[in-house]
């Protein structure tokens, strides 16, 4: 496999500063009331706004009440909306999701928090057998507008069971939408869209980006959601950085890394386009393929193990749809096919800027 280097330094996680700089360069800085906002704050604001807008929106899970969640995403919601609308449950993930199913059957819009990626597994049966299937089983009579928020992926020096990239399990399950924001503004926008969706949404939050900041105007985002309910952006990928020579396709925690790689490539005179998938399900083939047809080369980047994963799916789709436009095989930079490593080893595992640039170098350039 030519896409992998063993340089420990090269594969290190992209620094927050680099990611921020890249993001800010990509997002033409907004005028008006834009100010530095973290992803955590934009998610928190989205929850609060959704609860204010619709009394059937309920938030529950483990430690989401007084504590505000271990990542503070639900901070202040119990104080603002009362302990009937934002509350702690007993420690039982299947119970949390199963109860959400019943609540949604009976008129509520539950937004539940799984404390960490790997601790959502006890709820897997409820998610796969009921959340995903109820609408189909009842021929559309029963809709389950449930959002299951999952802080996921690594890069935070977390110990075992706190860093899984579990998105492929959910993406593989028909009937679930799977969203993963990579920017602060998308955090707000996409969480509002997820809560407004009549279909269940697995909302995968890259936990290493919780404290990343962008210049964002939350008022404008709120007004934007109220104006069109997310109809314009829901389910679409975004061009995070425009380029002409090759396409980097990434999602969630890998987007800032891809942007940093594109910035570095630019210095070497190579123009890389970065596509932020945002919505894994439904998948925006159009945006992805438009980019690859234009550039003729692509690298897919994901933290998750590559084998039988979302990244494999993207490669297959691009190959099926863009074959005659491709100048080189579509390559991947992904996590190794190993259990998520211990903190001192994770930088070997995570896709980093150098590993991405090596993959780009291997896209059979003529010169």
């Amino acid at each position, binding site marked *: 496999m030519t896409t992998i280097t063993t340089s420990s330094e090269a594969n290190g996680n992209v620094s927050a500063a680099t990611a921020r700089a890249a993001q800010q360069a990509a997002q033409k800085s907004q005028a008006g009331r834009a100010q530095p906002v973290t992803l955590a704050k934009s998610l928190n604001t989205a929850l609060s706004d959704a609860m204010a807008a619709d009394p059937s929106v309920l938030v529950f899970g483990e430690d989401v009440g007084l504590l505000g969640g271990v990542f503070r995403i639900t901070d202040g919601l119990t104080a603002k909306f009362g302990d009937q609308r934002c509350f702690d449950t007993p420690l039982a993930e299947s*119970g949390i999701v199963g109860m959400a199913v019943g609540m949604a*059957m009976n008129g509520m819009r539950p937004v539940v928090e799984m404390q960490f990626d790997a601790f959502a597994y006890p709820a897997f049966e*409820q998610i796969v057998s*009921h959340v995903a299937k109820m*609408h189909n*089983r009842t021929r559309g009579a029963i809709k389950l507008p449930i959002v299951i928020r999952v802080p996921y992926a690594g890069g935070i020096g977390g110990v075992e069971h706190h860093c899984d990239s579990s998105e492929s399990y959910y993406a593989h399950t028909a009937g679930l939408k799977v969203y993963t924001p990579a920017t602060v503004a998308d955090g707000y926008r996409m969480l509002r869209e997820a809560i407004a969706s*009549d279909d269940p949404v697995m909302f995968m939050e890259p936990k290493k980006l919780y404290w990343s900041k962008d210049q964002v105007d939350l008022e404008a985002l709120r007004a934007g959601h109220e104006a069109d309910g997310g109809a314009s952006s829901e389910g679409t990928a975004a061009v995070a950085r425009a380029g002409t020579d090759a396409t980097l396709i990434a999602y969630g925690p890998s987007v800032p890394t891809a942007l940093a790689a594109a910035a570095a490539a630019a210095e070497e005179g190579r123009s890389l386009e970065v596509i932020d998938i945002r919505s894994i399900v439904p998948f925006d083939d159009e945006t992805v393929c438009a980019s690859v047809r234009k550039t003729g080369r692509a690298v897919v980047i994901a933290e998750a193990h590559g084998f039988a994963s979302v990244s494999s799916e993207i490669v297959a789709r691009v190959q099926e749809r863009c074959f005659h436009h491709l100048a080189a095989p579509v390559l991947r930079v992904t996590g190794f096919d190993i259990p998520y490593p211990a903190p001192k080893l994770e930088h070997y595992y995570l896709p980093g800027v150098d590993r991405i640039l090596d993959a780009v170098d291997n896209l059979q350039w003529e010169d």
Partner: protein
Amino acid sequence: MTLSTDRSPEHRQGTGSAAEPAGGMDASENEPAVGADLDAPLRFGITAEDYMLPARQQIQMVEPTGLLKATEAQGTQPGHEYQLPSTDVLLDAYRHLVVGRRVNDQNSALVRQGRMAVYPSSHGQEACQVAAALCLSKGDWLFPTYRDSVAVMTKGVDPVQTMTLFRGDWHGGYNPADHQVGIQCTPLTTQLLHAVGVAHAAKLRGEDTVVLAMCGDGATSEGDFHEALNFAAVFHLPVVFFVQNNQYAISVPLAQQSVAPSLAHKAVGYGMAGERVDGNDLVALMAVLDRAVALARGGSGPLLVEAHTYRMQAHTNADDATRYRQDSEVAEWLDKDPLKRMRTYLQAQGLLDDAAESRIAEEAEAVASQLRTGLGEDVPVDPQDLFRYVFSAPTTQLKEQAAMLADELARDAAPQETESAQ
């Protein structure tokens, strides 16, 4: 022990600190857990433990022979007294019992004729089926399992729609919201949590909905059973958990699932009341479930009722019960048949004459004939339905796949047209 009254309902929602010791208790007495229902025992003048623990004997009102038991012998003790249901209630229940038995046997025949893919029969458990539906009021919800078709019908769902699941043209044949009946659930005990959620939503809106959630004896070993009981108790929700202990989980007898004194005893661990009832005694079932529903509706929190019954036939038509149980055991239960018992009881009480009996038999026959017709029909299936309901609006990918299948089918049809045109 006497319970102090200073522990307000708020206390049990877990918003306060852990329970402080009440005055005057000696060391041998345990404080009931936070979350326990403290009003009901007070009302009945008994301790929390005596309220939560099932009565020493299962509740039985009518003997297998059809004889009404003396009140003292019905299994009741202070706080566990049960009212004999009214004549009207019992006659209506008997009517459903007869229909239920006919439906079970009709469906088993339809399976043999290849008209249904599979049917997990509740033959022998019809008293439980009927009581589970009849104890509920309009607007109350029922969450059944694959074995509970008769309960689903008794709650008002059309018989043919009820059996659609087993006919094989869709996963469910009715809209749960029409009669407040969940789709019959196969992943064991997952439906109990849906029951909890429905009750929780209703409670938050201030409605007085009660939810009855059903499962089998084997299913009580599943994790969701425990999570559902605990959630219902902690959130103090009006859910009646109704376990039909028919002695087997496919081939595995109860002794290999649990060594608890009874399944109803499991209630106390979650701070709710449990009760055992003879599951082949429709009179006792109606009495116990009616009271459980009334308590739940009155704000006493969830309850667990275990009905002792027997699966008279194999697990499904695909199972061979002779591999794991003796015919003699089955024969013993023939004498405890719920239908025979109820008929003898009603006749002895002078409540059921021949005319009424034949009216009911006719009604049962009409339902059976409806099933034969409905399930005998070849209902056309629409392959495009495969894509229609996965999401509320099909994704681009599903539209592409739908078009591919449509094209395939069109091409399959095309050569024949060409041939016939020639």
